[in-house]
């Protein structure tokens, strides 16, 4: 009778072994991915028209994680391996140009792990528009003509809008210049070079006319 039990016990052990193999992934410790960087996308962010992606590579160029995102998303970049500093982060914006996708990829090297990146539209620079309110005619006498530079390239009359000359003619050593006046400049600067030296003068409080 003892000998008859041996095969039954063997079969039971085998069946028990099969069950343990099925449960193996749940029994062994599992490595869970950890967030190593966070991308916060502003709801008003305007990236690529078609789609936007962010992905990361380690210092050896191996891909760590990559996700597509839309405005308002918070993207957690994750990895099952420890991500140290100096990883690379890549932003891909896909737009439409000439009836086909156009890709703009921007890569930043040497980014520190466990940080965050806010994707927002940059605030607009303060910009004060100057409006043209009139024109003044200026006659420049005894202009020293020089062979290496034309008078039109050399003479500048500037205000907050940069060079405000609208037209210029030269007759002999006399140069007639028309200059736009704006509502927010009081003075103008006339400048030119003479034999490689800079000359200038201020034109105080110009008014429309000559």
């Amino acid at each position: 009778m003892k000998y008859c039990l041996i095969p039954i016990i063997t079969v039971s052990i085998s069946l028990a072994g099969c069950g343990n193999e099925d449960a193996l992934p749940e029994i062994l410790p599992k490595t869970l991915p950890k967030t190593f960087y966070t991308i916060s996308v502003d709801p008003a962010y305007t990236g690529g028209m078609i789609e936007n992606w962010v992905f990361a590579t380690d210092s050896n160029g191996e891909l760590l994680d990559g996700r597509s995102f839309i405005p308002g998303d918070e993207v957690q970049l994750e990895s099952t391996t420890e991500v140290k500093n100096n990883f690379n982060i890549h932003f891909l914006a896909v737009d439409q140009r000439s009836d086909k996708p156009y890709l703009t990829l921007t890569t930043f090297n040497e980014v520190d792990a466990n940080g965050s990146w806010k994707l927002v539209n940059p605030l607009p620079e303060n910009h004060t528009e100057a409006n043209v309110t009139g024109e003044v005619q200026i006659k420049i006498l005894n202009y020293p003509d020089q062979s290496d530079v034309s008078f039109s390239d050399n003479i500048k009359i500037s205000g907050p809008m940069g060079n405000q000359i609208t037209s210029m003619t030269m007759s002999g050593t006399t140069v007639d210049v028309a200059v736009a006046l704006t509502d927010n400049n009081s003075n103008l600067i006339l400048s030119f070079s003479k034999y490689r030296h800079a000359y200038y003068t201020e034109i105080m409080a110009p008014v429309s006319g000559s």
Partner: protein
Amino acid sequence: MDLKQVEKEFTLYFTESIYTYIGFYGYKIGDDAANTGYIISERVDNDGNMFGGFGEINGFDLYRTVISFKQDNYSRTYYKLGSAMEYNPYFGQPLTSVSKPLIADFSAMVGVPYLKSSIFFDNPASGDLEWEVVSPRSQVIPELKFMIKEVPTELKAKYPSLNLNEISFNHGSAVQYMDDFTYKDFILYRSNINDAVKRASNEYYYYEWE
């Protein structure tokens, strides 16, 4: 018209330049420095030997200096926004050669230290990709090939122009700030562009090469 002699003179020598530009501008309170401003001195030189007097004028609240010169395959610019220039800027030797243009095996030589570089790549075959790699010197040159070995599979399948074996060097630029602004500060600024505590200075050297 009473033309006033320059009050201060800076002599700049560019013995190998094929194009030189000097701009010196003044601003008043309320002016936007992004605009051209009052041109105090603005000149272009095409013979490449020597640039003479530069000029200065009192009476503005803010000054901007731009000095730029170009050689066959690169240009260099000195930029300063603030007070007037107090010294002659020194221009070192820029990056001049790219020996292995494909992004998969990129290599280049650089002759000056800089804060950050932007290397631009494209895919000449498809014409629908622009890739900017922003990096400190240590990782771009010559180890760019370690930046990325593969893009995410989904992106590669959807956009064939992301083929790393076709993407090659287009042009590059480098910025060397004149204060203690570091590459890490730059990353912090770009990742929080509207609220960054530390921002880039308004005085720097800029290099661009083809």
